[in-house]
């Protein structure tokens, strides 16, 4: 789910307000945006790239490696299936408030086709100095500098703060992976950790989690096996617990999900857990020496 500068990007929903705003920024930063999709604007040009009726129509004319969805929630399932049909290998789903059954549907279709989904409800992915896909402030030099720390974050705003703190600590980022804030995700924290563990540019990893769900606990199981150092911040120590999802919710989470449970699972796996994001940079520097 890392995206590097050579990869070609299709923007579904390119002509919308957010789609064109962020496409211009992606292009200015160096992202290889090669085309866009809007069924009503096929044949036109937007942000200097051709617009197609669908991802499948785009695939007939040009090659792309990644597609990113700037699409309203209830239209995302169809847009994602279009991208999967077009043999897209990586699909970045930024949209928040996609119905869970639609997410489950598009993830099942993607898994079968070998397409990696990042999101939904992600702010995107960044390779500082090369490219970004989504709506991260990659172009802000105080927030993003090239370096050797892989950052995995559920939240875009908190991920931004963590990257800023890394720059202040004299560090930079090899890859930022926003996995997204939805309960059901195409890329888990564990999936992203496996990829950063294998990534030759990454020397250490910062995990940025939050209360709820079990993705941090699952990632801890993999972190235990890693040689690269891992530090984490988990937001929500001072937050009231979220809503309870019947007896069934209690059965499947089985005591996981709280700040205490996540901190305990991560520490048991040898991951240092920072009390505030500002402490992460110093901890990672110490771990790498």
């Amino acid at each position, binding site marked *: 789910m890392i995206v590097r500068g050579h990869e070609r990007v299709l923007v579904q929903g390119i002509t919308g307000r957010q789609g064109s705003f962020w496409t211009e920024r992606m292009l200015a930063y160096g992202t290889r945006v090669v085309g866009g999709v809007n069924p009503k604007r096929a044949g036109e040009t937007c942000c200097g790239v051709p617009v197609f009726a669908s991802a499948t129509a785009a695939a007939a004319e040009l090659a792309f490696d990644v597609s990113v969805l700037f699409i309203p929630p209830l239209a995302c399932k169809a847009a994602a299936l279009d991208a999967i049909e077009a043999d897209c290998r990586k699909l970045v789903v930024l949209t928040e408030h996609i*119905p869970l*059954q639609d997410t489950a*549907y598009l993830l*099942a279709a993607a898994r079968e086709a070998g397409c990696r989904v990042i999101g939904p409800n992600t702010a995107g992915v960044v390779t500082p100095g090369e490219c970004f896909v989504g709506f991260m402030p990659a172009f802000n030099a105080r927030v993003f500098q090239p370096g050797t720390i892989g950052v995995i974050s559920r939240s875009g705003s908190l991920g931004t703060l963590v990257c800023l703190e890394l720059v202040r600590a004299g560090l930079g980022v090899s890859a930022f992976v926003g996995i997204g804030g939805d309960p059901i995700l195409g890329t888990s924290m564990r999936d992203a950790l496996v990829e950063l563990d294998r990534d030759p540019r990454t020397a250490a990893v910062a995990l940025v989690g939050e209360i709820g769900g079990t993705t941090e606990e699952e990632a801890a199981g993999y972190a235990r096996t890693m040689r690269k150092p891992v530090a984490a911040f988990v937001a929500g120590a001072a937050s009231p617990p979220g809503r309870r999802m019947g*007896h*069934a919710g209690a*059965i499947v989470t089985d005591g996981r999900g709280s700040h205490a449970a996540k901190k305990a699972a991560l520490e048991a796996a040898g991951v240092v857990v920072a009390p505030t994001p500002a402490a992460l940079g110093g901890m990672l520097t110490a771990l790498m020496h």
Partner: protein
Amino acid sequence: MNFEEHVGKFLLAAAGIEVPDGEVATSAETAAGIAARLGPCVVKAQVAAGGRGKAGGIRTADGAEAARAAANALLGASIGGHPVERVLVERRVATARELYAAILMDAESEGPLILVSARGGMEVEEIAGRHPDALIRFPLDVRKGIEAPEIAVRLADGSIWGLQHQMSDVLARLYQVFVRNDAELLEVNPLALTVDSRLVALDCKLVLDDAAIPRRPELAALGTPEPKAPLEAQAAGHGLKFIELDGNVGVLANGAGLTMTTMDAIRHYGGAPANFLEIGGEAYRLAKPALEIVLANPRTRSLVVNFCGAFARTDVMTEGVVEAWQQLRPGVPVFFSIHGTGEDEAIALVRERLGIEPFDLMDDAVKAAVEAAT
């Protein structure tokens, strides 16, 4: 979105799952009339809250007078913060065993997950913890759905006392209800095995996926809103999620992750947050009403404004804050930290229009706010 039991049971009955004969009453008089028709019955407070049985919200009644008394006691009472406005009066079912069946959207299997247990009832999660074998769980592919015979095969090895065919039929119907109504959770606990060997849904908990409300307007109209404090209700009117807390340091940040982190930092530096308020996603344009709500909380003694813009443009958010600040002229001190998309314009706005110098570090803004509040 949550629903009262009778709404869920209506959907179950329409899908061919047996529920007890019963009716909803809004007065003790009506409840007595229903009980006169049904005979021995159960009077159940209709609130979309857990722990209803333990809170005394479910009463048995042997006739019209007892049902009248039970309804009188329940109507107007409050359970789990919900006022009881209706009771469901149902014919009592002669139960041999209490089973459990549920379907929920599961993060780990990335789709619907069926849970079945031969040991249902109020303590089902503890029983599942102590006796993992008593719980059968299997994930489904939401693209394909599932039919009863296939479920029967998957239940064949499970310890459900030879009920796999009856149970499979109930589960296939439950799954239809789950999918057709965009449920996040559909739970029947207990699912009664009657003395004459029928399966009857004695309760039903339905949770509609909030993201699906726009395409399920008829169902959503029957839902129960969460009980809210006045400021929480005011925030909800703007589409903002606001939670009042016990502390005195107000928080305005963008995105749930950064908001929680700001609260954590307040706690870390010895203070206590006065609120949670999320203005993530498109809501970043609502900084002005958001600030009004934070300042309306009488406990707020100081305020941290912490923006880290990715999608959310900090210049747009800050403009809303500055506008509201100049209109409201609040007496509390405010401490800013602003970074990310649009930060130069945002910082210039705070300097020029409020004469305040934002902090570079969130931690410093938080420390100053904690100090000002004590």
